[in-house]
């Protein structure tokens, strides 16, 4: 039956899970992954190993995991210190970064107050009005109201850490706009309180600190260590007379390649972070509109968007706010927030790939090392007390637990990636449910699957693993292979998901909760398999064609 769709109300937007929550989880996981990857560069470049092309201290060759397998318990204990040292440095570095992140996050509000020279709002009448609007927003928590000294600032901002929440109002906003245009004042404050109601403060400020610390500290430290290793390597070769121009250029290119890789990874995460914040602005606008008729604000956005020049590409990429035109369009027709976005899916998949590659490689390596060390230790300690059969069984037990742990970890990753991945498909349903401009399903699913595959391909090129080198022309042949195999996989799972959800289209559709656990598990496993296939593609490809 062809029935006319009813309009999506502002309040109904919040009945669906906001996709930014998924992006936020993914972002935190990806930043952790990148931090571990880059953290690993530090010991790799400090200590000479077979896998590190440059090094500072020729300390040990025992860092390679493979060698742990092929050495006897006696040899292992002789080299235990050398074995543990690089790992300890690597993970200490990562731990320091995480602690610093938390410290920076907690200190953030004090920094903002100091930097902007904010003062507590002294006027009790203004405080009463703000309290009244706080109540209207459904907030009961304590908010500290601050004002800056700029009479030409008519904007406001919320910030905070933990349960300490602050509102910063421009002096112009409370001194002039409050009296001259209360309607606009109310809209601005309700928008800010909506950020609090939408729980944006904790998410975005923590994510920001989480990104900035690895961005600044890791980039600087890793680059400095790598650069020192490069200089030491080059000067060593020059002094010994064992060098050619080509070999020097080779070393420099290794350094630049890694440096660019680190910078590109962090810049990408920076773009994702800004995208995350921009998306929260739509939700704040919509929440405020559900509390107060948005006529004034729609009219303001419309007029201002006609007058203020459009943002350039970089402003759009790095800005904290979407363009006024997009804000106006979303407020005028809230269903637009549920239009499937290839751009978001592309970035999501790319970030997922980076996280997955990092988690898979370093998580697996770490687990492998821990369980191997445990296995060896058990064998060594119980040697002579138990027979060899029992020793072997104990090692198997350790390895089985390790595998189960790793599988659970991958399922956890699969669950997070699944939610962010399928939300674009879910949006087709939500959009078609409320909009008269229906989206054609097949082209939409093809477009989404194509962009998801492109995201994987970009990740594959950006974070090459298992001997893949973008500079080797032959290796590039594996890229179309990755693209085709992931596209086929994504198309199949997307279509399956769409039709599963289609059966519920007339029910009250709740994206996350209406999916049965077994289906979620199934889809999560499929997604993990597609990502693993992409990560391991180079090996498959070379085994297939060049072996």
């Amino acid at each position: 039956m062809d029935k006319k769709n009813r309009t999506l109300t502002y309040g109904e937007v919040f009945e669906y899970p906001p996709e930014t929550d998924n992006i936020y989880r993914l972002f935190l996981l990806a930043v952790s992954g990148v931090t571990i990857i880059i953290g690993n560069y530090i010991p790799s470049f400090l200590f000479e190993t077979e896998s590190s092309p440059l090094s500072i201290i020729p300390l040990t060759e025992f860092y390679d995991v493979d060698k742990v397998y092929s050495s006897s318990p006696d040899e292992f204990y002789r080299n235990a210190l050398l074995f543990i040292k690089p790992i300890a440095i690597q993970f200490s570095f990562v731990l320091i970064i995480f602690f610093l992140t938390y410290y920076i996050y907690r200190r953030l509000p004090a920094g903002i107050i100091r930097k902007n020279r904010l003062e507590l709002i002294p006027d009790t009448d203004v405080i009463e009005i703000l309290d009244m609007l706080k109540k209207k927003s459904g907030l009961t928590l304590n908010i500290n109201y601050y004002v800056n000294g700029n009479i030409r600032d008519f904007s406001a901002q919320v910030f905070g850490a933990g349960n300490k929440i602050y509102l910063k109002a421009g002096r112009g906003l409370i001194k002039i706009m409050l009296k001259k245009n209360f309607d606009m004042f109310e809209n601005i404050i309700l928008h800010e309180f909506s950020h609090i109601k939408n729980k944006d403060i904790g998410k975005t400020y923590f994510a920001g600190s989480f990104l900035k610390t690895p961005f600044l500290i890791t980039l600087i430290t890793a680059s400095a260590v790598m650069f020192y290793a490069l200089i030491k390597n080059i000067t060593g070769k020059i002094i010994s007379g064992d060098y050619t121009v080509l070999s020097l250029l080779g070393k420099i290119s290794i350094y630049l390649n890694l440096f660019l890789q680190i910078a590109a990874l962090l810049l990408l995460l920076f773009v994702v972070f800004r995208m995350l914040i921009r998306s929260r602005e739509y939700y704040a606008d919509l929440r405020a509109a559900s509390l107060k008729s948005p006529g004034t604000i729609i009219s303001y956005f419309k007029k201002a968007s006609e007058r203020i020049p459009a943002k350039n590409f970089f402003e759009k990429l790095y800005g904290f706010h979407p363009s006024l035109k997009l804000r106006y369009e979303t407020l005028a027709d809230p269903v637009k927030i549920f239009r499937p976005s290839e751009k978001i899916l592309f970035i999501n998949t790319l970030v997922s790939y980076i996280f997955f590659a990092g988690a898979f490689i370093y998580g697996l390596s770490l687990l492998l090392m821990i369980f191997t060390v445990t296995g060896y230790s058990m064998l060594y300690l119980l040697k002579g007390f138990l027979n060899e059969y029992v020793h072997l069984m104990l090692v198997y037990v350790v390895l089985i637990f390790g595998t189960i742990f790793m599988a659970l970890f991958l399922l956890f990753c699969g669950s997070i990636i699944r939610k962010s991945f399928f939300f674009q498909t879910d949006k087709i349903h939500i959009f078609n449910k409320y909009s008269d401009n229906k989206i054609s399903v097949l082209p939409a699913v093809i477009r989404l699957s194509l962009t998801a595959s492109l995201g994987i391909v970009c990740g594959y090129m950006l974070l090459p693993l298992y001997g893949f080198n973008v500079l080797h022309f032959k290796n590039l042949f594996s890229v179309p292979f990755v693209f085709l195999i992931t596209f086929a996989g994504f198309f199949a799972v997307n279509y399956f998901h769409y039709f599963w959800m289609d059966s519920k289209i007339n029910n009250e559709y709740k994206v996350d909760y209406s999916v049965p656990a077994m289906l979620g598990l199934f889809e999560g496993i499929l997604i993990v398999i597609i990502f693993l296939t992409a990560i391991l593609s180079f090996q498959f490809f070379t085994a297939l064609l060049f072996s």
Partner: protein
Amino acid sequence: MTEQITKEISRTLIEDISPDELEYFDELSDAHFKRDVTDKDAQLGFGFVEFGELATPAVMTLVSGIVTYLLTDVVKVAKDQMNETIKEKLKGFFSKKKKLTENNLTLSKEQLEKITGLIDNKLREIDVNEKTALKIRDSLISSFVLGK
């Protein structure tokens, strides 16, 4: 000196255009000269807000532009050479109650057109709504024409 004269002329105009803004005129004009930068794109902020109902910032920008033009193209003196006589001439130029004395600034038709053009261009650039812009434009242009 130029800042002072711009402020004085602007205050006279605001008395006529939007007298309720006199309450915070000093703060607004000081902010104009200090060029206080508003954080246009703060994290979890509302975004940059233009408050087009406010006439003072627009008047300050326009008067500042016109004074600079008059000094360089009409009176032809450097800003640091401005004296009381020139100051009076400039103030007289913006006054609706002009006295016809030999001290008056007289503009050619082209110069007057140039100033009108300058006003229109600036009004398009700056943050002011249509109603306020029209009010400011009328007030400024009538002040030049009256008494001529």
